[in-house]
């Protein structure tokens, strides 16, 4: 096989000067000719990054890393023998391939520590090399690979088919099916150039010999020659003390989450970043460079141990057991008019807890709770908490696909749910190896009187309690981990900010919030509504729920309140008794609050601000909001007691900017979550230490005014970076929404960062999808006299998140506008 031509390398996006040929004296006594890519590094003291591809690929697999990794590192990517443009020497055993890498490294004369970055079976070879030469290896970054078939699982079917008898040669050698199939495996998708690059060395049969040999060396049973060698390496992995980081394409049908879990168990210092929208070739589909760089730089410093806020030490369930509240109404469900007292709730929680233990649920295990909002849902969640299980709470508000992705990404050991949900979890393979527990089976078990009859140890406040999910308005929903102490602290701050006492009771039209009722020790009402669609809450259903619980507080999303107003009649006597209305999740229009105030004349209207990761951050009453008036963006009020808020420079700032200056909002609080789940890089980017506190980057941009009010101007990722500087979208939208006939407006940038052009999209009543008529265009431009608005588009409906129906997906909108304004589509 001859070296690839400069023209080919150029076409597929590789610098021809990186391509080299070397004759390597081999441990087998011969000399073999290798092809490899070698990008020199600028810093001689930086470690060398050695990339090992798998099958059926070649060093091209690392083209993105070679192009994108910080220039200080030298990056070397060889083609394994008989693969890519290296010499064809026929089939080669695993043991030899590991020794080959040693030969290659020695021939190249690489000095200093080596970071191995490897994918697919390259990962197994890398692990073999690391075990054999641990003194040279500084760490591993592995992507969609494995060292053994995880227990309870069959070998990856795709490879099994490819490796099996008759079909083996047909698939791997005689046709290009295997090579091309790999390039088209599910995931984020590759560009035409990348697919061309992957298949470049494998255009004819003889060139595919190596692939056939490689696949044949995958040991599927103990009789295989390489089985013992691989098993030996696997057994030694726990002795490797170097950092190991996994970059895992979640859509890989071959090396799926089971393989990731298997590896996670084998190493001492291991972290994972799960890439939700990517597949087997995640290293080519997505940019892994930042991950590799962060991994290397963190390993060179001492990684701080994960310390979350300590939170509260009062358990979440203690108030359910309060003897003086035994006969008080604990929960009323407006959907079926059922009710329980605190004593009855105590009994149900205890009964569920015991039944869960009997069904094999252990402390520390993750449990997906797929039950619609009801007394049973609340009881089940508290039961899980009490026995130390971690509840995965993904509400239907994420949509069925979002819910599935959330459950899948959490790697739950158990699914507890109503029948249809359990069936869905099974048939949609959300949790193929989890035990499936039907709610009914728990209800039929032996009744306990209360939690003090449950002879099980309680979890500590440092133990994990729940994984909650972000709304996914900006990318796939992320799992957020909370400890018992952090959830307890969240309960305490809500109690403090809203002056909640025993005499209060509340109606929650937003399911996750209803869970706090029993922890607060107050009566909780569930309104009769379709939880997947907040806009189905009617005024009557809300009033009925308030009557049944004598509610003093109401919590509902802005969309739900809007529908309450739409369906309001004169006869809503119970709403009149409410003292507090809270609405959150998305910006609440001031008119909604003003009109709610008419329905609940004695109530204060409050809008807490926060996010799944930290809630609440700030709070604003209607009264304060009227007093503050207008400004740049949306005012969300002053930080609540005990919550620290700083405005820092976007993209990595850690120190406070001067008052009034716009930057990223970062927060710190006792009730802040522990961090993300299986998203190591995301977590590293989102958290930092400063002033003795752990801070969370919210991803929101805004400023603090001289009165200490926090103003939100949009999301960092939605900022518009034009040639005259960067601007935030929300202040522009606020201005455009004043134009008569405009329901909502969105400001987006098109083009590359630095030269982006501003486009305004208007949501109007009678809109068709088109360039807005001149009168709108003129008014928009007059409203924004200092900015150049290149186009004004009109639409019926802006893209919004499913859960709140109100967070605008400006990223998707920008992509759409870019396409429209390129002339490629209408």
């Amino acid at each position, binding site marked *: 096989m001859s070296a690839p031509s400069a023209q080919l390398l150029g076409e597929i996006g590789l610098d021809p000067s990186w391509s080299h040929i070397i004759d390597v004296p081999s441990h087998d006594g011969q000399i073999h000719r290798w092809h490899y890519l070698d990008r020199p590094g600028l810093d001689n003291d930086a470690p060398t990054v050695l990339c090992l591809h798998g099958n059926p690929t070649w060093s091209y697999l690392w083209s993105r890393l070679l192009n994108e990794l910080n220039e200080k590192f030298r990056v070397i990517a060889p083609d394994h023998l008989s693969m890519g443009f290296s010499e064809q020497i026929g089939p080669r055993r695993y043991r030899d391939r590991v020794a080959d890498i040693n030969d290659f490294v020695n021939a190249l004369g690489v000095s200093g520590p080596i970071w191995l970055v490897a994918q697919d079976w390259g990962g197994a070879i890398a692990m073999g090399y690391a075990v054999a030469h641990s003194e040279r290896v500084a760490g591993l970054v592995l992507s969609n690979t494995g060292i053994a078939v995880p227990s309870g699982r069959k070998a990856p079917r795709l490879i099994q088919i490819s490796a099996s008898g008759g079909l083996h040669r047909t698939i791997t050698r005689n046709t290009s099916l295997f090579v091309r199939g790999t390039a088209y495996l599910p995931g984020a998708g590759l560009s035409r150039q990348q697919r061309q690059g992957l298949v470049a060395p494998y255009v004819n049969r003889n060139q595919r010999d190596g692939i056939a040999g490689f696949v044949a060396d995958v040991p599927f049973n103990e009789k295989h020659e390489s089985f013992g060698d691989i098993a030996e390496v696997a057994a030694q992995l726990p002795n490797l003390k170097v950092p190991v980081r996994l970059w895992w394409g979640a859509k890989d049908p071959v090396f799926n989450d089971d393989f990731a879990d298997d590896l996670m168990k084998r190493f001492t210092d291991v972290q994972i970043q799960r890439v939700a929208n990517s597949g087997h070739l995640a290293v080519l589909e997505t940019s892994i460079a930042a991950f590799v760089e962060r991994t290397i730089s963190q390993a060179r410093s001492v990684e701080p141990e994960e310390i979350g806020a300590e939170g509260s030490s009062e358990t979440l369930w203690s108030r359910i057991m309060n003897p003086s509240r035994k006969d008080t109404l604990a929960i009323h469900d407006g959907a079926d008019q059922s009710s329980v007292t605190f004593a009855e709730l105590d009994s149900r929680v205890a009964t569920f807890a015991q039944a869960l233990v009997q069904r094999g649920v252990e402390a520390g295990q993750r449990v997906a709770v797929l039950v619609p909002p009801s007394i049973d849902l609340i009881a089940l969640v508290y039961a899980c908490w009490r026995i130390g299980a971690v509840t995965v709470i993904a509400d239907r508000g994420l949509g069925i696909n979002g819910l599935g992705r959330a459950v899948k990404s959490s790697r739950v050991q158990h699914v507890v749910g109503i029948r249809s949900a359990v069936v869905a979890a099974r048939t949609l393979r959300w949790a193929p190896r989890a035990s499936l527990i039907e709610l009914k089976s728990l209800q039929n078990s032996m009744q306990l009187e209360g939690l003090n009859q449950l002879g099980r140890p309680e979890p500590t406040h440092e133990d994990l309690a729940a994984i909650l999910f972000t709304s996914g308005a900006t990318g796939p929903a992320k799992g957020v981990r909370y400890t018992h102490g952090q959830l307890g602290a969240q309960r305490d701050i809500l109690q403090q900010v809203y002056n909640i006492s025993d005499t209060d009771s509340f109606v929650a039209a937003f399911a996750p919030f209803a869970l706090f009722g029993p922890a607060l020790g107050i009566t909780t009402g569930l309104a009769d509504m379709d939880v997947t669609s907040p806009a189905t809450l009617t005024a009557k259903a809300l009033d009925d729920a308030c009557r049944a619980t004598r509610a003093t507080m109401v919590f509902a999303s802005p969309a739900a309140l809007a529908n309450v107003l739409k369906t309001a009649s004169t006869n809503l006597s119970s709403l009149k008794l409410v003292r507090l209305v809270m609405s959150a999740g998305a910006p609440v229009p001031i008119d909604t609050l003003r009109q709610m105030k008419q329905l609940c004349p004695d109530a204060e209207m409050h809008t807490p601000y926060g996010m799944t990761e930290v809630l609440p951050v700030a709070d604003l009453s209607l009264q304060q909001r009227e007093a503050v008036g207008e400004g740049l963006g949306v005012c969300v009020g002053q930080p609540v007691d005990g919550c620290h808020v700083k405005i820092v420079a976007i993209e990595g700032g850690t120190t406070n900017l001067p008052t009034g200056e716009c930057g990223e909002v970062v927060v710190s609080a006792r009730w802040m979550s522990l961090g993300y789940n299986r998203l190591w890089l995301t977590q590293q980017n989102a958290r930092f230490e400063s002033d003795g506190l752990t801070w969370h980057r919210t991803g929101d941009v805004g400023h603090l005014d001289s009165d200490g009010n926090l103003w939100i101007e949009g999301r960092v990722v939605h900022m518009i970076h034009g040639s005259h500087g960067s601007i935030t979208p929300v202040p522009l939208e606020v201005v455009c929404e004043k134009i008569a006939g405009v329901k909502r407006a969105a400001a987006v940038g098109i*083009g590359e960062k630095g030269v982006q052009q501003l486009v305004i999209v208007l949501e109007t009543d009678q809109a068709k999808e088109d360039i807005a008529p001149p009168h709108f*265009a003129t008014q928009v431009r007059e409203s924004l006299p200092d900015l*150049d608005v290149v*186009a004004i588009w009109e639409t019926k409906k802006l893209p919004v998140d499913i859960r709140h129906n109100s967070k605008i997906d400006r990223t998707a909108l920008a992509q759409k506008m870019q396409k429209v304004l390129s002339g490629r589509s209408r």
Partner: protein
Amino acid sequence: MKVLVTGAGSLLLAGVAQQLAERGDEVICFQRRVVEKSHPNIAMFAGDIRDRGSVTEAAIGCDAIIHGAARVGVMGSWEDFYSTNVDGTINILRAATEHQISRLVYVSTPSVAHVGQAIEGDIASPATIGRKHAHYAESKAQAEILALLANSEQLGVVALRPHLVWGPGDTQLVGRIVERARQGRLVMVGSGNALVDSTYIDNAVSAHIAALDSIAPGSRCSGKAYVISNGEPRTVNELMSRICLAAEVEFSPKHIPAVIARNIGSVIERIWPLIRKDEPPITRFVAEQLGTAHWFDQRPAQEDLNWKPQVSLDEGFVRLADWFRSQESF
């Protein structure tokens, strides 16, 4: 400063000559047909750019050259385009060397780097050659490459590519759109939503003067090409409709799909010259130009030439409307 301006018959270069004269520079206007001079500082020199002798003679004593003489349109043979645009430029380069002139502004066109794809926020990419049927773009590209290659320690060369120039008196863009709209023959290629850069005439003029002032051997802009525009991209639809509004003619174009327009355009630009003598209604280049986005990063031009557009689009359309009204009153 004494400046040789070629191609001063065009709206853009006539404007450049006028401005230079007004600010006190001595201007030699080199053109085929001598017209009445509009300023005492302007001298007329009648000559053919293809004639080396007259070019050399015209350049005597000049400090700088703005070279804008070119054969435009789609009519004519390759030899016609080559001799005017490429040989003409070679004559200019020779004259500059002969008279030790150290500054040259080459008036180019965005079509020299046009490959039919959308351009969104890019800087001017190098001119490409090898087109088969677009004689104008091909000859301008070859000439731009030659001109920039001539950039040296003795001669500073900068190329400007003004993007869709329009304004009062413009017969190319404004004139044709208004004429077609009046006849009810206005055609919109594709959706009309492609975002394109355009340049108000006064800004195109001031950019060339700024380039003249910035260019010198070894200066920041020497040896480089810049796309010039207002830096306010708009949809094709908006540009055309506002031109029609200024001219007070109805804007109701017939839409034709981009693919069809391109195909019609390529057929027409080959057949038309064989059967007609006037300019064809559509060419492949125009179809592509109006069917896909074309807007550029204006920072390099503004920074390197120390220039900023002075007339905004809004102001430009007001002036265009005033001009149309003044035309009617005659």
